[in-house]
């Protein structure tokens, strides 16, 4: 078994071991397997990256086995390791391992400890298939698989109807995206006869133009990405997905799975390079999503919801980068985002842990002193996401803003303006979160306040590591690293002199956001209350998330059910089809009754029938044959 296969399979073994035997062998075993195997996978990944480096970054390919051969068409389970894979695989295994470790503390009390780790390992398995897969098919397997793991983990505490429903919602939203993805794959396959990604990219960049329209394929694949990466219109599942255990939110719904869409587009950049229309759509959707989610995040009070909308918003940033052709930058943001968002979520987990499960930030406050490690790490991560230099988020976000303005592949002032405004909002709501949680007067009840305590080392150590990564991660320039395979878009010549203005602007935005939040929420947050009261209508719209869920229910879900029930079931099946059948049966019965009444028992009648039959036959026979 090759190294690549090993990376993928290791977590699977963990899933099988914990899933089948976990309950019998005890927590020690579960922990060892659950954390150990991802750690080994991480180690193997590092080793592979080193090997890749040694081989002068020539991609490694490895075929595990042939899934099926149909005629000449071979569908192989094959893995591929290049620079992009290296980045993603390191994030997945690295952050993944950390979150596993964190979970040993967070989930310590849970009855379904083994099940939890089994699911988490399952997720890693699928995520690694997604990242390492060489063909779209394997990628799709991972793609669907992470959706499954996400479904299982969101609904982990399934006793609660809402949590189970959230899992279902996530799965179905993902499925809608997957349908688009499938369509994209089918079109590609029909046109090119292969699902092998390197070959597809090569085909689109080759001399012969493929039969399929790159824009069509691009948009279809992007539909898939909107599902997984929570973009308009399919983003609605992600905030609800926070119903799962917090480490799950950190790993799946912030650091790794939701970035799969970004990865997909970056991976298929060969197509998007030839699909300007699709790219424009991506940029527009990304910008809109980023803005919309950021505005919603301002008005949320649930700590995880805020982070969730911030995730959606950040994903929007990444898609803007993809839309303007800065694929490396998008991956860069994935990379930095993985650190700080994981850190934020885990920090939030630590807060919730401390607050005995309370998630409403309006009922927190003044926690900074009580849980200092959590506070420190949370603060670093918040600064990173807000784009305070020289933290990681600053670098990636700055580059996104730059290319949004200048890229010759769709950069524009409008795009830049929207993104800059969104960045401002980001800084604002993140600092709002920080302020309401850690500063000001404690607003929780006595009982809870009494119980507040710092988390165990297994959690705080992880937080610290992630905080450090969030702080210094930005110095490793991913775009530069990826440039040999994902070249940067050309910046418009005329814009070059704006470079430092943009740089300064983004710093100013971050600081302005910080200051604004500090001003509004200082003390008893009375200023914020006043604004809230002044714009009550707008606030209601925002806190209700623009009523999008309600809109979907009214426009899609209810009509679908209505048609299925009234038209298909009642009218179609029962009335038309069964009605016709039962009607025919009744007709036959009635005819039988009529015919039976002919048989009156009267010999006269029988004889007359004979006579009539004879006469009719004779007359019939006069016809000339």
């Amino acid at each position, binding site marked *: 078994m090759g190294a690549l296969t090993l990376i993928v399979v290791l977590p699977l073994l963990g899933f099988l071991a914990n899933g089948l035997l976990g309950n019998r062998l005890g927590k020690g075993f579960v922990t060892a397997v659950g954390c150990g195997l991802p750690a080994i996978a991480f180690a193997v990944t590092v080793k592979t990256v080193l090997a890749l480096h040694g081989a002068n970054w020539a991609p490694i390919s490895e075929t595990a086995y042939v899934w099926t051969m149909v005629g000449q068409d071979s569908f192989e389970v094959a893995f591929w390791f290049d620079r992009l894979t290296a980045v993603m695989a390191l994030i997945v295994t690295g952050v993944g391992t950390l979150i596993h470790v964190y979970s040993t503390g967070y989930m310590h009390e849970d009855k379904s400890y083994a099940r939890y780790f089994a699911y988490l390992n399952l997720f890693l398995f699928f995520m690694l298939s997604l990242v390492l897969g060489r063909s779209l098919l394997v990628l799709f397997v991972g793609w669907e698989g992470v959706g499954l793991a996400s479904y299982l983990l969101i609904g982990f505490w399934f006793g609660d109807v809402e949590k189970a429903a959230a899992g279902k919602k996530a799965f179905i939203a993902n499925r809608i995206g997957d349908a688009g993805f499938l369509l994209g794959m089918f079109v590609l396959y029909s046109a090119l006869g292969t699902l092998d990604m390197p070959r597809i990219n090569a085909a689109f960049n080759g001399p012969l133009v493929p039969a399929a329209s790159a824009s069509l394929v691009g948009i279809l694949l992007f539909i898939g990405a909107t599902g997984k990466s929570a973009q308009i219109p399919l983003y609605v599942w992600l905030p609800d997905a926070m119903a799962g255990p917090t480490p799950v939110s950190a790993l799946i719904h912030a650091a790794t799975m939701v970035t799969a869409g970004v990865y997909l587009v970056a991976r298929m950049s060969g197509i998007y390079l030839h699909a300007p229309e699709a790219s424009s759509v991506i940029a527009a959707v990304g910008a809109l999503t980023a803005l919309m989610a950021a505005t919603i995040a301002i008005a949320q009070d649930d700590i995880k919801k805020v982070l969730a909308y911030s995730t959606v918003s950040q994903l929007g940033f990444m898609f803007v980068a993809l839309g303007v052709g800065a694929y490396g930058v998008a991956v860069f943001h994935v990379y930095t985002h993985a650190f700080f968002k994981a850190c934020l979520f885990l920090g939030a987990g630590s807060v919730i842990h401390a607050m005995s499960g309370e998630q409403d930030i309006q009922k927190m406050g003044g926690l900074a002193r009580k849980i200092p490690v959590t506070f420190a790490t949370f603060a670093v991560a918040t600064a990173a996401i807000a784009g305070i230099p020289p933290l990681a988020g600053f670098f990636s976000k700055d580059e996104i803003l730059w290319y949004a303005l200048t890229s010759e592949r769709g950069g524009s002032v409008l795009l830049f303006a929207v993104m800059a405004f969104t960045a401002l909002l980001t800084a604002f709501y993140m600092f709002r979160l920080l302020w309401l949680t850690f500063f000001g007067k404690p607003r929780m009840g006595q009982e809870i306040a009494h119980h507040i305590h710092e988390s165990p080392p297994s959690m705080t150590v992880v937080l610290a590591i992630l905080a450090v990564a969030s702080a210094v991660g930005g110095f490793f320039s991913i775009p530069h690293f990826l440039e040999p395979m994902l070249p940067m878009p050309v910046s418009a010549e005329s814009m070059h002199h704006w470079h430092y203005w943009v740089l300064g602007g983004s710093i100013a935005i971050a600081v302005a956001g910080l200051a604004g939040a500090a001003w509004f929420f200082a003390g008893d947050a009375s200023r914020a209350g006043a604004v809230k009261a002044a714009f009550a209508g707008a606030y209601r719209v925002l806190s209700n998330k623009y009523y999008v869920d309600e809109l979907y229910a009214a426009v899609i879900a209810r009509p679908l059910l209505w048609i299925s029930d009234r038209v298909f079931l009642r009218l179609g099946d029962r009335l038309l089809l069964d009605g016709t059948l039962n009607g025919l049966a009744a007709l036959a019965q009635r005819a039988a009754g009529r015919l*039976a*009444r002919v*048989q*009156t*028992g*009267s*010999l*006269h009648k029988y*004889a*007359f029938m*004979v*006579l009539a039959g004879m006469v009719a036959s004779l007359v019939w026979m006069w016809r000339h044959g």
Partner: protein
Amino acid sequence: MDKVQMLQVLAASLFALGLTGVIIRRNVLVMLMCMELMLNGVNLSLVTFAHTMGSAVGAVLVFLIFVVATAEIAIAIPVVLLLVRRKRSLDIETYTDLKG
């Protein structure tokens, strides 16, 4: 209308009259006699043809019909007897217990 034609028409008429009698007469015994009438029509037809062709086979059949008709009547009469025992009626319309 020549002789043979006339006799054939008569034969057909007797046949039809017989069948009609079965249909319209209610008395069982009359019905039985009407059956005989039908056979008489057949006989006439056969004899006429046998006569015109000078072949004996038609006459042989007529002879067989005599025998068979007698046999049928011989069975029919006791059956009617059985019937009348029960219902005390020769009216066939009263014998409609079997139907449906």
